């Protein structure tokens, strides 16, 4: 046996005897990346939020100041933007949950095995298909000469001028994030054994009672998981407000985009980004208080 061979064997044996060493070797590259790139960036974001921009030169002044946060909390325009964003996120979340619940119930519990596969494929397609393509499609549908006004005039219906309104935003957001709500709710329905529903019926519970007392508690974690996506995605989007929304469609996302990209005010954008992180944190906390994570 050559020296090299023996060294390799010893090395293998040493690694086998020390699982922590193997673990450390395997985990350190990805965790280092995560630490150095992602977590450090979040810290950089927090630090940047306390800097300011020199109004004359446009350069960042690396001096500690609360100015960005006090501006956000004292100027009513930002209060309005934050409120509008949260209301939109809530509306979109509720809309998607109301559509996803019966739909997911149907594919999980009523549809035949084969059509279930087909339905799932049809949900996954828009989940992964180009986000820009899906937004662009709605511009073509809602615009003044778009598919919807066209269809309405053909049918002799009153023409709805939805283009560049908050209603349009609500429709498009609900459309964009719907698959993110369907998938976890479907997963939750799938985990409910049919026998449980049969037992409930055998014990004399009506459909509505079974739904409320047996199904809902098991589905709730799925709804919460989906709502985290719909909420977070609505908070973080600036493309849809810019392309679909109108002059009254300022949301946190495009306020951040405006300050960072057009206004050159990275510190103020960072402070706004922390507001959306705070909203997410509050949302998760409330969901936890409501016991949404107990079943997970």
């Amino acid at each position, binding site marked *: 046996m050559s020296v090299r061979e023996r060294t390799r064997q010893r090395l*293998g044996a040493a*690694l*086998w005897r020390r699982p*922590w060493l*193997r*673990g450390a070797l*395997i*985990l350190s*590259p*990805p*965790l280092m*990346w*995560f630490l150095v*790139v992602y977590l450090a*960036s*979040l810290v950089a*974001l927090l630090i940047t939020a306390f800097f300011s921009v020199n109004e004359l030169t446009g350069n960042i002044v690396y001096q500690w100041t609360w100015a960005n946060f006090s501006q956000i909390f004292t100027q009513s325009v930002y209060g309005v933007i934050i409120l509008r964003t949260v209301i939109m996120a809530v509306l979109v979340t509720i809309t998607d949950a109301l*559509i996803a619940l*019966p739909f997911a*119930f*149907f*594919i999980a519990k*009523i549809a035949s095995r084969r059509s279930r596969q087909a*339905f799932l494929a*049809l*949900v996954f397609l*828009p989940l*992964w*298909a*180009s*986000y*820009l*393509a899906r937004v*662009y499609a709605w511009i*073509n549908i809602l615009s003044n000469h778009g*598919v919807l006004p*066209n*269809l309405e005039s053909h049918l002799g219906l009153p023409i709805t001028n939805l283009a560049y309104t908050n209603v349009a935003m609500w429709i498009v957001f609900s459309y964009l994030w*719907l698959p*993110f709500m369907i*998938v*976890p709710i479907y997963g939750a329905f799938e985990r409910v054994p049919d026998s449980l529903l049969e037992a409930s019926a055998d014990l004399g519970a009506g459909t509505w009672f079974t*739904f409320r007392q047996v199904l809902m508690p098991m589905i709730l974690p799925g709804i919460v998981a989906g709502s985290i*996506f719909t909420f*977070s*995605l609505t*908070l*973080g*989007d*600036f*493309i849809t407000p*810019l*392309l679909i929304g109108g002059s009254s469609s300022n949301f946190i996302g495009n306020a*951040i985009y405006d300050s*960072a990209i057009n206004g050159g005010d990275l510190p103020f954008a*960072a402070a706004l*980004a922390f507001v*959306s*992180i705070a909203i*997410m944190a509050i949302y998760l906390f409330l969901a936890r208080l409501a016991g949404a994570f107990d079943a997970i």
Partner: protein
Amino acid sequence: MKLARFTRAGLAVFAALVVLFLLGPLLVIVLFAFDKSNVQSLPIRHWTTHWFAVAFNDPAVRSALWLSVKAGLAATLIALVLGTLVAFGIHRFRFFGRDTISLMLVLPIALPGIVTGLALQSAFNLTHIDLSIYTIIVGHATFCMVVVFNNVVARLRRTSTSLIEASADLGARPLQTFRLVTLPMLSTAIIAGALLAFALSFDEVIVTTFTAGAQNTLPLWIFGAILRGQELPEVNAVVVFVLVLTVVPIAYAARISSGERTFGSGESK
């Protein structure tokens, strides 16, 4: 649960409407891409592939496409290695803070994309790193890693460790076991993860906005062109091209990992 036939039929109709709602808009833009007119409207009178040719011969589109492909491939490669490693580590070893780490890994997906983008821009700004293709790749690799992780960890949970132990008992070295036993068991999950990661990167626009600087990836070119409201028929052709390029790898990934629910583990733009 007993449901009246009426309720069942109602749910079936509702489900069909939801599918129409989900797919109808995509159908509209695919059709519009072949409309000869400058202003697209239904019904389409003259069909053409002219706009695809226009888009393909546009130097701005070409360079944006090339940048997207390069960044996507590099980010996928990094995500592939890091995502597989972390899936292994989390699955095979029990250690303090393991649950925290696996929760933290999902952060780039659970937090709004704009936060990730702006955080990266702040970090590059503080460390005086100029925005380039490398900063795009770093950003994409970070969220693509999560996709690969989700796919591989889902497969690992389904495979037993007895094969690996048997391989070691029969005298295989750890690397041999990895190459000849573990990797073949995971290969389709890894490939599916890589395809999804590439599709995600190729279409990503929110994080990229903050990490690209003056460069244009294909999604950034599309976004800019829609914002300006110019060259819309050409934009439509490019959008359909991106749509196809994201759907094909996804369909393939779904096929090779069929039977597994690797998709439900979440993804965000």
